[in-house]
């Protein structure tokens, strides 16, 4: 069913990666990566540790310039379209000393003048209580992950790049986050997520991006 949905979503490209290679300290991390991401599709990126998943996400986010090749998002360089991209990394990307609400208020202010979710809406989307008084450093790992996702959703990005969003989450929290991501995808957002929990995320994936030794292959879910 996910495959059918994917095939019916033929529309202009969200992101195009053209012959990307990236070298870290003399070691090639990505080799001749070529792919196109379509709007409203969910891509599950799989690969062993060190396969280059996080590097590819950072390149797509415009945070890292590839050594060779080019990336475009909506026809421009990702660095010029960053406010349309939401990026969640391994690190929570939050101030530990602030409460959840203080963090989201700060990040919302960075997008002042842009259409954003309210802080309350972002909290509600990830099922967190906005009135929690404790600083983020007192949150559990799962709560941090959810708050981090709330931060990503705040500016209503069209492309979501999520690096290991389910890591250290219990089964219920992971399932809740998965259904949230499915909703986001159904609203037309493009999602690229990496995880080592393939079985968990595969049901919402439209396509698999398999990274091995820096080379990318695509496959349909349930086949590769």
């Amino acid at each position, binding site marked *: 069913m996910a495959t059918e949905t994917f095939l019916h979503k033929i529309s202009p490209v969200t992101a195009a990666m053209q012959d990307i290679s990236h070298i870290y300290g003399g070691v090639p991390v990505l080799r001749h990566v070529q792919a196109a991401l379509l709007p409203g599709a969910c891509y599950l990126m799989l690969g062993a540790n060190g396969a280059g998943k996080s590097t590819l996400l950072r390149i797509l*986010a*415009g*945070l*890292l*310039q590839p050594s060779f090749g080019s990336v475009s998002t909506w026809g421009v360089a990702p*660095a010029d379209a*960053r*406010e349309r*991209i*939401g*990026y969640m*990394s*391994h*690190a*929570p*990307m*939050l*101030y*530990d*000393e*602030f409460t959840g609400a*203080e963090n989201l208020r*700060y*990040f919302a*202010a*960075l*997008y*002042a003048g*842009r259409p954003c979710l309210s802080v309350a809406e972002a909290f509600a989307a990830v099922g967190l209580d906005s009135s929690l008084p404790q*600083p983020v450093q007192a949150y559990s790992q799962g709560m941090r992950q959810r708050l981090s996702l709330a*931060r990503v959703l705040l*500016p209503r990005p069209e492309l979501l790049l999520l690096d290991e969003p389910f890591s250290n989450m219990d089964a219920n929290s992971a399932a809740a986050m998965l259904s949230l991501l499915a909703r986001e995808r159904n609203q037309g957002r493009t999602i690229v997520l990496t995880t080592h929990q393939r079985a968990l995320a595969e049901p919402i994936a439209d396509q698999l991006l398999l990274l091995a030794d820096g080379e990318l292959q695509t496959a349909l879910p349930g086949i590769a």
Partner: protein
Amino acid sequence: MQIGKDLRLEWRSKDAINAMLFLALLVVVLFSLAFDPTRAEARQIAGGVLCVAILFAATSALNQAWSRELRGGVLDAQRMSPSPPSALLLGKVVANFLVVSSVELVLAPLFTIFYNLDPKGNAWLLLAVLPLGTWALVGNGVFFAALSMRARSRELLLPLLLFPIFIPALLAMTSAAGAVFTGESDPVLWIRLLAGYDVIFTTAAVLLFGLVLNSEG
């Protein structure tokens, strides 16, 4: 917004302010004990001692200027936002300037007591010298801390980059403060030099900060 955020973070942890106060007081007390200056000698060396105490203390805080952003990956979130890099830089410069200035407010009366100072010139001119010198130090310090934040030995790299650039401002600050304490020369020329230095280096930092922030490879 950026200023309030940095000040609130510092208020909650008090990491930088405690380290700065401790270091600045240590320098002032140790110099006082080591030289045991007479009142006349104190007037001659006070400007230099005060500037060096502020320089060492501020450097310890500036080394940590971007640590919170790096630790949690917050810098990436800031880079992804449409907020201009200059706002991030200036917010941090102003917040650090206020923190260093508050340390100076505590330091100044203690300094006067330890060195038995009785300025011969216009003491109120220090109200121009100290803020201008502090801005020169903090403005450059925050910028160079950003430049060195991804380096492995950033604690070592920051003084190596900052101190040579800061020398003209240090000379102007020391000379102006010395002129105020001794009353032997007019500090206004030095104050003008400091103001010019601040304008030039702050402008350069604002213009170049986007490149520094987004340089990752």
